[in-house]
């Protein structure tokens, strides 16, 4: 592919301006990106293959020859990668392949499994109740994002990791710049460094006192002290969990609330049938799919995806959000249907990198939404969906704020 030809390719991520928060593409974009496998141009100017069908996205994300290591030459980046020192490269297992990846991930799988998340449900409930009290005190009207959607998952992940929530302004601001694909390379580098320095201090302090019942203390005690894990690796893992642990769920809570409030019956159903909330959460995850720019992979071998041969060295973007609206799998996929069987959705990704925190995210969403409907039965949005301010350039889509009243 020559550079001249690349400029004629449709740009990915597609602009989301004027779509409102619930439509993924407009008609023209849909036409240009119809696929099933389409050649696109990334913001860096590099070409890549865009994969949008459910079956193909599953195949890409489960393919052992498609790498998640974003430092490999030719990796389809959405923004240039700042240079990283060797210690800073450690522990971020989201960008590792094979054994290197599973070695670190397996130190965490038991932490986030369903039965352990069930044990911390009372903590999630308490956190939700306290945030609802704050919301009641702040309004009406009040910003749901700032007073409820963001604090709930932030407080929970801080508690689990052993990070003081009092520092939330510091890490929330920096998490957001790391996830925004328009952030300059210099700022990404500076903010990642500041977060690592901050977490390193917490880890080092645990060397003197690792009695705590939090994840960082446990890993210091069981893995670092025993020589299975280095401090640099633990810092990288903690950084990944801290950022991924609050931004994603926070954005899901904000978007879900706006969506459910569009039809009063949907919101009321949360209060009337809380036992069905788990099903509803699956459809919210499918329909809203907050990781909308997709998951990038680099082909290390030739691979055939959706009838298209992807050559070794070429980049692939697996678009979870479009796969979640594939008519082959979901009837009337553009319709939000609260109690459809949406369990096949790919909102948490697929393959060995699938979200490790998904049981936690599901529990937080369910408890937060049921709690909100219970405490504020007359809740309504003070803005129309087309006017809300959305995070169009973040890797995790969401609302900047959501004014609500009751």
């Amino acid at each position: 592919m020559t550079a001249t030809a690349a400029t004629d390719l449709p740009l990915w991520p597609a602009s989301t301006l004027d779509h409102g928060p619930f439509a993924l593409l407009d008609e023209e974009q849909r036409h240009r990106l119809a696929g099933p496998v389409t050649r696109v141009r990334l913001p860096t100017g590099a070409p890549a293959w865009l994969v949008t069908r459910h079956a193909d996205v599953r195949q890409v994300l489960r393919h052992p020859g498609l790498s998640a290591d974003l430092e490999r030459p030719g990796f389809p980046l959405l923004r240039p990668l700042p240079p990283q020192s060797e210690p800073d490269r450690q522990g971020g297992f989201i960008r590792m392949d094979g054994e290197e990846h599973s070695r670190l991930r397996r130190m965490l799988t038991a932490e986030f499994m369903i039965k352990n998340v069930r044990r911390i449900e009372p903590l999630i409930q308490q956190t939700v109740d306290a945030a609802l009290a704050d919301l009641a005190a702040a309004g009406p009207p009040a910003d749901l994002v700032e007073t409820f959607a963001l604090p709930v998952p932030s407080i929970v992940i801080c508690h689990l990791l052993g990070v003081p929530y009092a520092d939330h302004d510091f890490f929330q601001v920096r998490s957001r710049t790391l996830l925004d694909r328009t952030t300059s390379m210099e700022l990404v580098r500076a903010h990642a460094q500041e977060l690592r320095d901050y977490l390193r201090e917490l880890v080092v302090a645990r060397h003197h006192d690792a009695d705590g019942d939090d994840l960082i203390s446990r890993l210091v005690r069981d893995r670092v002290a025993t020589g299975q894990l280095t401090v640099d690796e633990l810092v990288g893992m903690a950084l990944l969990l801290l950022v991924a642990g609050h931004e994603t769920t926070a954005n899901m809570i904000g978007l879900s609330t706006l969506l459910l409030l569009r039809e009063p019956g949907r919101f009321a159903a949360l209060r009337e049938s809380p036992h069905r909330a788990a099903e509803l959460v699956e459809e919210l995850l499918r329909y809203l799919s907050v990781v909308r720019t997709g998951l990038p992979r680099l082909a290390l071998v030739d691979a055939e995806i959706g009838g298209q041969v992807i050559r070794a060295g070429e980049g692939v973007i697996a678009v979870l959000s479009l796969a979640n609206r594939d008519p082959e799998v979901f009837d009337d996929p553009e319709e939000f249907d609260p109690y459809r069987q949406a369990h096949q959705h790919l909102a948490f990704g697929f393959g060995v990198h699938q979200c490790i925190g998904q049981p936690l995210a599901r529990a937080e969403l369910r408890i937060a939404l049921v709690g909100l409907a219970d405490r504020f039965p007359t809740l309504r949005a003070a803005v129309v969906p087309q006017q809300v301010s959305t995070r169009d350039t973040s890797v995790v889509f969401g609302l900047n704020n959501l004014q609500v009243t009751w």
Partner: protein
Amino acid sequence: MSQVGVVRVAVDRGRCCGSGNCVVAAPEVFDQDDTDGLVLLRRPEPPPEAAERVRRAVEVCPAGAIRLTSTTQP
């Protein structure tokens, strides 16, 4: 009348990434190890009424760590 096949389940802990999706789909058949979070098979030959849930577990397993084999009863 045709014979009813028995579904046998096999799991590959080497491939498992501990997503827990199988436990959500069919809790009577799958569990997760308390120490490493990886899949544990509770019932290698699940009862017929669990067959649909087991098939769903195979479908939602992100790592492809669950296999089904059917044997036809004599």
